[in-house]
Each structure stands twice: as structure tokens, then as C-alpha cells.
């Protein structure tokens, strides 16, 4: 029972990080039909910001907001430089552009920083843990869950109360009509990238705080997982992205914890098999987007 509680906390922490990343992908996809594979590099930028802040002795309480800000600025710059010129291009054009951006950034990280993994200085408290009865919970896990909850509340408020957030939902549903309301394409698209950068930045801080290192390919695996989570939840649906992120986190952590030893090496295929199984029964994902398939202008 204790082990189960412990693993559930781990699953919430990992799933929450996937959920934030999947949300970032979904926000951009729902508005411009782009799956941004360079999303992971936003995480890496945040990770390196944390690393340099650590080297320069910047207090962690300052370096975290700086790292998140770096991802937001990088996301907005990415849109302005790489994606705006191909806006209105086919899905394939935008997808290939995102791969190009990802590769260029990876090569820059390798050549300008280091191809090898670099240590990131983290405050002591993150590696400590809290004893609740027989359950031992890492502070970094608690921080991850708390940060995820805060981000989800913030995003919910933003999308439902703020004029720009509502405009983003409107544009995701019917871009042409949103423009007829006077909603500028640049505003909502830049807004979507800024939100996705914010989510990637927070996810990066959580990711790094579990591992204390950063390397040029750091963002690749979590974003691949987030992409799977987004598909699992229903591509383009924000609620689906959150559900898919948590679902994938639970599948991974529970398999790692409860699968018999002799099956452990098949953990990944079994996990992905479960994903495929869910998609067989719900081909549009767990919470499909109602508007996918609408023509976007």
C-alpha cells in the first residue's frame, strides 16, 4: 500500500510534467495546426539558463523565473523568425520547419556549450524528502505536483477569463471568423507560442530538478512523450492534453514499479502497447477536440 501511494506520487509528478508539455504542444497546434517538435529545445534553453545561473551563483529563486522567461522569449522568437514566414503553408511544411529549428538549436548547443551532459547546481532542499508515515516523498516531487497544479489553474483562468485567452479559443475553433471580429492573427499566434514557452519553461525546471543535469538533447525524449500524450488525449484538445499527460505518466511509473522483474526490459513496448490499445477504442483520443478537421484560414 505504501509503495502504491509512493508510486502514485511519482506518477503525478511525471504525468504533470508530461501534461504541461503536451498542453504547450496542444495550444500551438489548436491554433495554427503546427506540431512544434522544437518544443523540446525550449526546455533545453531553460535548462542551460538554469545551469549558467548556477555557475554564476544566481540564487535559485531568481534563476527559476529567468529560466522560464528564457523559454518564453525563445518561443516568441521562434514564431517570429521561423514559423511566421511559413504560416499558411501546409502542415508538412510547418512540421519540417519545426524539425529544422530543433536540429539547428541542438547543433548550436553542442558546438557552443558542450556535447556532453552538464551538471546543474540545485538547492539542497530539492534532494531532501518528507516522511509521511511509511511513505517517503521527495521535495522535488511535491514541487513538481504543486507547480503543475498552479500552471493548470493559471491556464484555465487565462483561457476562460482573459480576453486574449478567449480569443485564442475562438481562433482555435474558427480562425477566419475570429479575424472578422478584429482578432489579429499575430496576436493569438504569438500568444499561443508565449504560453507554450511558459509551459515548456516550467516543465524544464521540473525535469532538471529531478535530474540535476542538462545536455543538448535533453528536450527530445520528454517532448516525444508529450506528443504521445497529446495524441492519447486527443490532438488539439487542451483538456485531452492534460488527461493524456497524466495517463502516460501513470502508465510509465506503474509499469516500472509493478511489472515483474523479468518483463521490465519490455516496459516501453508494453507501455506504448497500452497507448495503442486505448487509441484502438478511442481513435480520436480520450477527449477529442471538437473542432479538428475544420478548415483553418
Amino acid at each position: 500500500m505504501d509503495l502504491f501511494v509512493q508510486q502514485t506520487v511519482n506518477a503525478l509528478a511525471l504525468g504533470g510534467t508530461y501534461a504541461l508539455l503536451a498542453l504547450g504542444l496542444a495550444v500551438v497546434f489548436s491554433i495554427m495546426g503546427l506540431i512544434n517538435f522544437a518544443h523540446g529545445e525550449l526546455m533545453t534553453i531553460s535548462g542551460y539558463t538554469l545551469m549558467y545561473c548556477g555557475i554564476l551563483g544566481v540564487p535559485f529563486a531568481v534563476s527559476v523565473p529567468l529560466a522560464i522567461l528564457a523559454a518564453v522569449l525563445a518561443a516568441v522568437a521562434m514564431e517570429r523568425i521561423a514559423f511566421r514566414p511559413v504560416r499558411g503553408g501546409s502542415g508538412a511544411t510547418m512540421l519540417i520547419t519545426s524539425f529544422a529549428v530543433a536540429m539547428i538549436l541542438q547543433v548550436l548547443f553542442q558546438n557552443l556549450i558542450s556535447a556532453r551532459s552538464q551538471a546543474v547546481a540545485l538547492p539542497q532542499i530539492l534532494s531532501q524528502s518528507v516522511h509521511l508515515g511509511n511513505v517517503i516523498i521527495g521535495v522535488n516531487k511535491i514541487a513538481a505536483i504543486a507547480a503543475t497544479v498552479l500552471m493548470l489553474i493559471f491556464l484555465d483562468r487565462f483561457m476562460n477569463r482573459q480576453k486574449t485567452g478567449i480569443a485564442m479559443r475562438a481562433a482555435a475553433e474558427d480562425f477566419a471568423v475570429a479575424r472578422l471580429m478584429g482578432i489579429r492573427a499575430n496576436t493569438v499566434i504569438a500568444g499561443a507560442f508565449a504560453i507554450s514557452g511558459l509551459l515548456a519553461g516550467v516543465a524544464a525546471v521540473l525535469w532538471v530538478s529531478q535530474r540535476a543535469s542538462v545536455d543538448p538533447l535533453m528536450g527530445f525524449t520528454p517532448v516525444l512523450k508529450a506528443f504521445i500524450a497529446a495524441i492519447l488525449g486527443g490532438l488539439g484538445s487542451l483538456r485531452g492534453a492534460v488527461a493524456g499527460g497524466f495517463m502516460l505518466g501513470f502508465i510509465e511509473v506503474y509499469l516500472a514499479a509493478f511489472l515483474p522483474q523479468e518483463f521490465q526490459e519490455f516496459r516501453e513496448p508494453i507501455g506504448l502497447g497500452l497507448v495503442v490499445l486505448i487509441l484502438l477504442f478511442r481513435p480520436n483520443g480520450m477527449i477529442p477536440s471538437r473542432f479538428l478537421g475544420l478548415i483553418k484560414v
Partner: protein
Amino acid sequence: MTRVPLLSAQGLNVRYGAIQAVRGIELSINEGEIVTFLGANGAGKSSTLNALVGLVPVAEGRVLFDDQDITDLAPERLTPMGLTLAPEGRRVFGGLTVEENLRMGAYAVNDVDRRMAAWDMVYDLFPILHERRKQFAGTLSGGQQQMLAIGRALMCGPRLLLLDEPSLGLAPKIVGQIFDLIALLRERDVTLGIVEQNVAMALEVADRGYVMAAGRVVATGTAEELRQTDRLRAAYLGEE
């Protein structure tokens, strides 16, 4: 002094790839008028409206609104100037509440007083929208969605409102309500351009009309004149 039309188009052409939807038409809408565009399916009526508001590019020709050249302006630039369109098929934001839909309609209005006046006007014209303001627009009936689509377009306080097939797919009784509303809008000094398939109803509320066939204007005149010409019948039956 001659009267300058609020909106005019000269030699307007619209193409979709190799298909030419609108072939060099001339039109004008004066302040305070209701002008209707009639014609069979595929005559180019919707393409004309979409080109006027910048949703589809103008291949050739010029569009003037309030004496300014708006030929190449995007729709989001035109709304603040007072020109908007309630598109065909209503296209309300189904995942947004009625209130949020209307709030988006007023997106371009920065003046608080003007925004409040718009809320009052729309809720006054459509009490049902006020009643259902917390409901998702996707759950409204077709007629209510059409009212929301028109209400949403009115929220920006347009000087010229273009309506594309406002009665499409609605029950006859609801169609009557929509046309009553159009008559009400005239009393509130909203200039209207209406694409409509319900010819009798359209000519009843309109001052003037254009009859289109195969991308061209084949007849124009006052509503009274159009009711009496054969060109209208001919345009629908495909005789040119």
C-alpha cells in the same frame, strides 16, 4: 454634390485557382440602405461578400469603404473601421458561451461606453441571448445561433454589416423573425448588405438589389423594379 457611397467595388474579380467566381462586377452601398444580392447557387454572391471583407483575396479591382481603399486589407483591419460580415452557416464559436461569443464580437472596440451600448443593444434586440448567456453556443438551436451570429457582428458597432444567407436552414417561422430583426436594424441606422436565397423576403426589406449569375451582375435596380423584371427569374433558371 453627389453622394459618395459608403462602400463601392469597381471591376471586382475573385479567383480560386483556375476558377473565376466573380467576374468584374461593380457595386455600391449607400449609408442607411439595405442592399440585397440575389442569384442561384454558385453565382458568386458569397465570394463577393468574402472579398469585400478581405476573407478571400481580390484578384483584380478596387474596393472603397468610406472613401478609403480597402482592397488588400485583412478582415481584422476592417472591423475597427466599421465593416464586418456575419458569415454563411452562422459559424458561432460553439465551445464558447453566448456571452463569450458576444465579447469576442466587441474585441476591436476599446471604448468602454461604446461596448456597454453594444451589449445593451444586442441584449435588447435578442432577449433570448441574455437568457442563455452562460450556455455554450453549440447547444443553441439553429435560429438562436443565427441571432447570436448577427448579435456578435453587431457588437463591434458596424457602419456596414454584411449578412451572408441569414435565413439558410432555418424553419419558416424563424426566417420571419430574422427578417423582422433586419427591419429593426434599419431603424437603428445600420446599413446592410444581404446575400439571400429567400428572394421574396429579401426584396421586401431591401431598398435595392443586385442579381448575379455566373459571377456577373445581370440586373440591378430598386427592390420594386427587381420584383417586376424577368431578369431575376432568368438568373435563377440559368438563362442569361
